[in-house]
């Protein structure tokens, strides 16, 4: 009974997030329709520019559901980009082995963090804080220079446009522009769906919710809490590296300052999408909409043209406040019903 209520509240939060996105988008269309906000491409750009963030936010959601947190992801993204660029440009390693290598490094990274969190019982915040410093530091050790990726195979992945069969238009220079996406978008959405299915329908996924909901009861229920947590962090490390790979497809370069504050954007997207930092509640689709909301605000500010881009942060701060208050109200209501 209690669980049913929880799900309802959770679903309600998700609906609010989706509704908010739809309303914002409609407002955008009304306000900026003359400037081309109605174009299919404007929406697709939200996905293109945020493909990496979608994967990172998905993974973050999973970690948050266990009641943990991973603030190392931004640095891992930077390290992944740097490693990819460095391996391909300075070491002459092919694109495929380079990508496989960085994904393996991501897994190892997750394994270490997961072991420290699950078996050594160290606070995830501290563990991943160390991970964050370590990965950022390693990025600088590999190279303090900016490295541009020129590997042909990698660039062909990055630039392979997949045109949509609809929504084309002729721009004012007389050029026909068809809406398009890059493969990174398809991959990101695929990962999102896979993680969604994993969380919802597999034993592993359900254990994640159970552990986040109440670790003691999960333990008493006979779930292997430590093992599950370890697995979550390993998967999270892998997805962080994968998100980094997608991010790199968008920027095609490696440098130390890359993806700074990315972890915070992922956490913000998850929270806006209805994930509770206290664990046990969360939905990866909510996080997707969290990312899309952030992207829409950015697009607004760009289309507006004169507002400071820092308003993005302020708006997101306001949204975060709104959503955590909403969550807290729900939690209170639930407690009363008990």
């Amino acid at each position, binding site marked *: 009974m209690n669980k049913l209520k929880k799900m309802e509240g959770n679903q309600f939060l998700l609906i609010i997030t989706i509704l908010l996105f739809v309303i914002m988008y409609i407002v955008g269309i009304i306000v900026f329709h003359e400037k081309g906000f109605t174009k299919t*491409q404007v929406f697709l750009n939200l996905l293109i520019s945020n493909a990496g963030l979608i994967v990172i936010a998905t993974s973050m959601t999973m970690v948050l559901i266990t009641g943990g947190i991973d603030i190392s992801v931004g640095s891992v993204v930077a390290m992944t980009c740097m490693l990819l660029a460095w391996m391909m440009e300075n070491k002459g390693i092919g694109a495929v082995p380079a990508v496989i290598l960085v994904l393996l490094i991501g897994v190892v990274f997750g394994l270490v963090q997961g072991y420290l969190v699950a078996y050594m019982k160290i606070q995830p915040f501290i563990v991943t804080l160390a991970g964050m410093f370590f990965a950022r530091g390693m990025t600088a050790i590999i190279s303090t220079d900016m490295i541009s990726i020129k590997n042909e195979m990698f660039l062909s992945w990055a630039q392979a446009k997949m045109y949509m069969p609809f929504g084309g238009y002729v721009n004012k220079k007389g050029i026909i522009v068809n809406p398009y996406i890059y493969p990174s978008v398809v991959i990101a959405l695929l990962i999102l769906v896979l993680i969604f299915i994993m969380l919802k329908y597999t034993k592993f996924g359900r254990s994640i919710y159970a552990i986040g909901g109440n670790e003691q009861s999960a333990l008493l229920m006979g779930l292997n809490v430590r093992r599950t947590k370890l697995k979550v962090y390993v998967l999270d490390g892998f997805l962080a590296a994968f998100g980094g790979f997608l991010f790199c497809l968008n*920027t095609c370069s490696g*440098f130390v300052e890359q993806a700074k*504050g990315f972890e915070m954007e992922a956490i913000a997207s998850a929270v806006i999408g209805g994930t509770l930092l206290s664990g046990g509640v969360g939905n990866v689709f909510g996080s997707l909409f969290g990312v899309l909301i952030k992207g829409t605000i*950015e697009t607004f500010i760009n*289309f507006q043209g004169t507002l400071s881009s820092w308003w993005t942060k302020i708006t997101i701060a306001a949204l975060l406040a709104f959503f*955590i208050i909403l969550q807290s109200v729900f939690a209170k209501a639930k407690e009363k019903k008990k």
Partner: protein
Amino acid sequence: MKRKVLSVLLSAALAATLMTGCGQATSEPAAEAAPAEEAAPAEEAAPAEEAAADELIVVGYAQVGAESDWRTANTESFKTEFVEANGYKLIFDDAQQKQENQIKAIRSFIQQEVDYIVLAPVVETGWDTVLQEAKEAGIPVILSDRMVDVADDSLYECWVGGNFVKEGEDAAGWLSEYLTAQGRADEEINIVTLQGTIGASAQVGRTEGFASKMADTWTMLDMQTGEFTQSKGQEVMESFLKQYDDIDVVVAENDNMAFGAIDAIKAAGKTCGPEGDIIIISFDAVKAAFESMIAGDMNVSVECNPLHGPRVSEIIQTLESGGTVDKVMYVDEGVFPAETAADTIGSRAY
């Protein structure tokens, strides 16, 4: 309950972090400095009238951020140049020092069908994909300040910025004149250089330019990087002073390092500036450099002009009338010695 409080606190902390923002002061190697007077060339008044009848030219500017005074002056120069009275509409985007934000901004400019995109790239790398998108949409891209590292240079129309090599040459030229005026032209002169961040275009150009104009009687004792920061500049200068006791000239590849060097020299009990033992040559010519020159600590600063707006506007007008422009377009830059500092400081834009 405890958990909930914790989660609320964490979220609040998160919101606060988001608001204060990340990645403020990234070191700003490329440049800092400039006078306002030399701006608007006369022909700029003309296009205003014809544009008023016609449509406004829409220009999207993807700016790095607002990390330094130089950058702010650069932004202001665009905001004052690209106004409706001149026939423009400016869409300005501040990328907060993040490349991914600039990529997003360019994509958004393409959707808004701007006529021109001006890009001051945060980094030189990783622009192939998005510039290709702009090219396919038929929108010319003009680069400001920093170059991009792309395989195909038809992806951008041209680059506008300071000529770092010439700045280096100007610095050496000034030194040679100064020494001649002091009657020290035949003397052995020992020089040390505080280099910028190695590999930054400002460092490479200034080092190269200065080296190419070295006189036979000059000796370059040592060169080390001070990474464009005051503290590192001071540190390196301290070690130079311990190593060499006969330094005549310090070349600092930006003003901040020069300030650090001046502190180090004073701490070591030596003197610098026009009245002192050691000649200080610096680059950028920010307002603080003028103050330092007036205080008698610095000898000269070679400017790095941030006022790119008028130059970019000229280029756009040329392109609009069907003309072509060179791939590399320099802005005018001056040399400001200490003698004139008091007179010019009032006219500095920053």
